[in-house]
């Protein structure tokens, strides 16, 4: 009798603890998504329509989707190439927490300010060009190029990639690596067969955290790339703020959401496949 009562109480209090979470999810996740989906089926006169989606599958938007993908992919790949070795070296250093802090520190500064700082650095009379001049390479156009766009995006995303990879690497039991070496594996084999598989979850988390926001970057495309790079994010911003064609903006947003869910599903599925193989 008594135990049953306690269980009931526990259940009750557990339900109470769930309330803030449910309210949060409903107000900030579910209702907005429903609204976006609803608006995507409404034209500028407020009538039901499929035209927004039809318009999305025209060359202009498809090309935009492709460029968004291409740049997001490049940004993710380069970020990963830089972050993995960095995270690896970090775990080997003596004061790793301090080094980690130094890498994360810039991300405490507002993104917009950092973007503006790069306008100054990359400008014709900026520091980078002054250096190039001294080295005898001569002045180069840096601002408003693909290079500067990818460079700044990578710079901004690096902390988000390093953190999960660093955590995964840091958790590896060193005896596993020792065991691999004892059994005669070369450094490369140890990395390929032991270290990388053990950190794969971290890499996946990092890629998700970088790829998804990179897909809808819009502020940097204007500030750093001078609108020479147009992504779906730019289009969403324009439709909501300038054209006030919320329907079209929502249709693009729905498409982006679907792609994001798909990315999550695909990166999540592989894990299950591996598990079932093991079984």
């Amino acid at each position, binding site marked *: 009798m008594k135990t049953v009562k306690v269980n009931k109480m526990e259940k009750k209090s557990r339900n109470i603890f769930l309330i803030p979470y449910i309210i949060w999810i409903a107000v900030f996740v579910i209702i907005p998504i429903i609204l976006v989906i609803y608006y995507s089926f409404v034209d*500028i*006169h407020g009538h039901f329509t499929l035209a927004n989606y039809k318009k999305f599958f025209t060359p*202009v938007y498809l*090309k*935009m989707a492709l*460029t968004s993908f291409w740049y997001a992919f490049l940004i993710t790949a380069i970020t990963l190439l830089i972050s993995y070795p960095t995270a690896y070296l970090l775990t080997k250093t003596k004061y790793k927490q301090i080094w980690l802090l130094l890498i994360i520190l810039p991300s405490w500064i507002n993104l917009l300010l950092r973007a503006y700082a790069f*306008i100054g650095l990359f*400008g*014709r*009379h900026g520091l980078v060009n002054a250096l190039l001049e001294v080295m005898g390479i001569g002045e180069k*156009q840096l*601002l*408003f190029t693909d290079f500067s766009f990818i460079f700044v995006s990578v710079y901004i995303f690096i902390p988000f990639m390093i953190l999960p990879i660093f955590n995964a690497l840091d958790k590896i039991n060193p005896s596993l690596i020792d065991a691999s070496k004892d059994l005669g594996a070369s450094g490369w084999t140890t990395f390929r067969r032991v270290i990388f598989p053990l950190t794969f979850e971290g890499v996946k988390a990092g890629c998700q955290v970088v790829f998804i926001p990179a897909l809808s970057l819009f502020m940097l495309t*204007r*500030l750093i*790339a*001078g*609108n*020479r790079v*147009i992504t779906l994010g*730019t*289009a969403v911003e*324009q*439709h909501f*703020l*300038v*054209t*006030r*064609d919320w329907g*079209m903006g929502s249709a693009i947003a729905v498409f982006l959401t679907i792609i994001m869910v798909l990315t999550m599903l695909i990166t999540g599925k592989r894990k299950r496949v591996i598990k079932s193989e093991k079984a």
Partner: protein
Amino acid sequence: MKKLIQFFSTVFLVSFALMFLVNYLNTSEGYAGRNTITVFNWGDYIDPELIKQFEKETGIKVILETFDSNEAMLVKIQQGGTAYDVAIPSEYAIEKMKEEDLLIKLDHSKLPNLKNIDERFLDLPFDPGNEYSVPYFWGTVGIVYNPDMLGGREFDSWNDLWADDLKNQIVLVDGAREVIGFALNSLHYSLNDTNKAHLEEAKNKLIRLQPNIKAIVGDEIKMLMVNEEAPVAVVWSGDAADMMWENDKLDYVVPKEGSNLWFDNMVIPKTAKNIDGAHKFINFMLDAEVAAQNTEYVGYATPNKAAMELLPDEVVNDERFYPPPELTDKLEVYENLGQEMLSYYNELYLEFKMHTK
């Protein structure tokens, strides 16, 4: 946990005390109820001395709030959280506000100084009979350039932008109406053209401009031109005046084919609580001496004829900012083309932006 609770309660208490303090200070300075007006203006767009003068003359306290785009202003007024008594939107925003019933009709009997405004700037298509708005400043869209960086070259036509030797030199303001507008003008069409064949022609012409374009940006243009990052830009005259103030090598021209004529106007939004005070403020700003002083501070072109007589000749006779009548006749005000057409303009603009060099 205890520390966390302590921390949050301190933050809460401090914010509460500050709120109370602000409220107390406001009442003690007379910022309460009937005796204040809230003015919603663009940033740095009024001489602060004049606000003091207005407060002294009328005893009404002015609370100044600023916005940085018509769209942001519209949203804030639609939400109606703050009781804005006077706002200063551009003409196309006024048309939207009229459509959405966000404005209060002006009582002309309370605005005797309206007679100071040049007749050319009254009774315009966006507000026939000035029922809702009174012009504050006006300007054009044109080309700002740095002759030093271009070997003394000069511009007088939109078509000069298409020159072969300007590769990667031009910065454009990021606005669909502005960019498609000057392309239409360069083809001698109206910048309110709704003929789809003409618009398609303009887009194709813009695509041919792509190799010459360095960037399409917003407010950063000012910084880029002042720092000589680029030699040519298409901008609003007000921004051009700012740039020339900071870098005297720059020059500005309104191309001969014609261009856009824009107005920022004083209106009383539906959110107003002190309508009488709002009229007093508008009338005060229309006063010749006040408008002249404000023009000297802000640097844009004033529509106030009486004020122009008080301004130094070199300001009023500067044809770059006060274009002569033969040019103003070719300037056009943006008409509200309707949501459908605006979407079409933006579609074309996106296509143009997508077309990389």
